[in-house]
């Protein structure tokens, strides 16, 4: 290729990218193309090359991204309680000179928490108005009855123990005697995934889990490592090597929700139970703790808890099929947006 061809094609390439080119260069390139078939072809090839299909992100990747982002947003929303408390403290102090600082404080990540705090305040205001107008709040604490069974705090109680107004629910399928090989990390439930061939990809500790794995001995603290994957899994070194432990999840409204445990699952085969802040429902319809709300991606009935938007958590009744993420858990289960460990 002659030097003029190289200069001309470089100019054509820059023009194709809408880059500024001197009038002189553009004129020289056009004049050269009049006499050079090779450069004319290059000019047309630029269009062909630009029109060739490029790799496209599979739709499931975009879905995964949005699930991860929703989990981060939920994580930020969880800051609401602590930030709300700080805010209340700050207001109580009533220091006028702090007001200027507040504007600064409201920027950045705290904005998310502040938005949530405003939401909580709005709910509180509505409750205040309802009570003030004489409407009795439904299901006050004194109405609740906790019935302990051999199945633990979150166990389902026989329908006969409740009022006859409760709608009938399908009878739970017989629960398997043993839960899957779960462990809990920061109150969330994980199930074993594949073994890691290369342990050097997981060296950053994210905390500890207490587990005896499948053994009969006492549970011991075991380091959990950040997973090389971005699916919310963790890496735990067990008797058979370093293994991925994947979050136990289910989909609701295109967002992944993870099973949350109120008990420490410190041995394989133990069922996760409801978080202790929830009283065990005394009826198959979830009352008085939960209210039927809709269905998840599998068509399984979801239940909301009072004061908790369904997007921030929901319950699933016992007795799901063994193929369900709840795996026939004989107790009620609670699910919250997936968090990255």
């Amino acid at each position: 290729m002659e030097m003029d061809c190289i200069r001309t094609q470089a100019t054509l390439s820059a023009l194709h990218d809408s880059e500024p080119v001197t009038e002189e260069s553009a004129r020289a390139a056009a004049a050269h193309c009049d006499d050079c078939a090779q450069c004319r072809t290059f000019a047309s090839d630029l269009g062909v090359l630009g029109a060739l299909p490029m790799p496209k992100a599979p739709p499931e990747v975009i879905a995964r991204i949005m699930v991860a982002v929703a989990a981060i947003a939920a994580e930020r929303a969880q800051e609401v309680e602590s930030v709300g408390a700080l805010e209340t403290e700050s207001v109580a102090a009533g220091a006028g000179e702090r007001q200027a600082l507040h504007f600064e404080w409201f920027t950045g990540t705290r904005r998310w928490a502040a938005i949530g705090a405003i939401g909580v305040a709005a709910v509180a205001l509505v409750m205040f108005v309802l009570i003030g107008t004489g409407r009795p709040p439904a299901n006050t604490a004194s109405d609740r009855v906790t019935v302990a069974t051999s199945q633990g705090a979150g166990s389902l109680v026989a329908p006969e123990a409740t009022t006859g107004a409760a709608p009938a629910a399908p009878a739970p399928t017989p629960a398997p005697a043993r839960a899957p090989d779960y462990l809990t990390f920061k109150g969330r439930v994980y199930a074993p995934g594949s073994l890691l061939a290369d342990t050097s990809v997981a060296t950053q500790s994210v905390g500890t889990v207490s587990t005896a794995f499948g053994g009969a001995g006492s549970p011991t603290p075991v380091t959990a490592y950040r997973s090389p994957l971005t699916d919310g899994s963790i890496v735990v070194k067990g008797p058979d090597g370093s293994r991925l432990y994947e979050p136990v999840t289910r989909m609701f409204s295109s967002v992944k929700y993870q099973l949350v445990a109120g008990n420490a699952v410190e041995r394989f085969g133990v069922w996760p139970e409801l978080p202790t802040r929830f009283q065990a429902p005394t009826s198959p319809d979830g009352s008085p703790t939960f209210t039927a709300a809709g269905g998840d991606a599998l068509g399984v009935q979801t239940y909301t808890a009072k004061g908790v938007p369904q997007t921030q958590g929901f319950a699933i009744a016992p007795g799901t099929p063994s193929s369900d993420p709840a795996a026939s858990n004989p107790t009620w289960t609670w699910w919250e947006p997936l968090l990255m460990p």
Partner: protein
Amino acid sequence: MRRKGYGMAEPARDDADLVTRAAAGDIGAFESLVRAHADAVYAHAYRFFGDAQAAQDATQEVWVKVFRSLEGFGSRAAFTTWLFRVTRNVCLDMLRSGRRAATPIDPVELHGIANDDTAGEAVGAVDLETAMRALSPEDREAFNAVALFGLPYAEAGSVLGVPAGTVKSRVFRARRALTTLLSLDAKGGA
């Protein structure tokens, strides 16, 4: 002048508004950003690693980083310039950490391209992507910055740490190599 990249559904002028809304907590606006630019991110990662799974992981990691950093981004640079910088860094970090390796080009594959006698319009993504892997990493990422992300040469140079003139040379060299490898000349172009 900022151009529309290959995979961009909407011109870049909408990005600033979407970024502002997403930073204020509008998840829908963030999803619009993802849908507008996910292909560019994925394509760059795919060309970097030569592997679809690695490209998917990188794409997710890029957008999670972007989401976490939106509030700090402000408007100090064009969104696509920042996005290209994040994408490039995520790919390099994955490579350095050993989590992923770049797939080397098999010379036999290139031989196959050079002797491909299919019609010009039949030249598809697979051939283009194989040819992409024959480029030097420097030429390929300059080409991607300009062709995928729509970056002007000067902004691509600022991310790559080279002058705009060097970007111009690299992009031109990449185009020359691609048109030759894909035998576009022999096929008469469009």
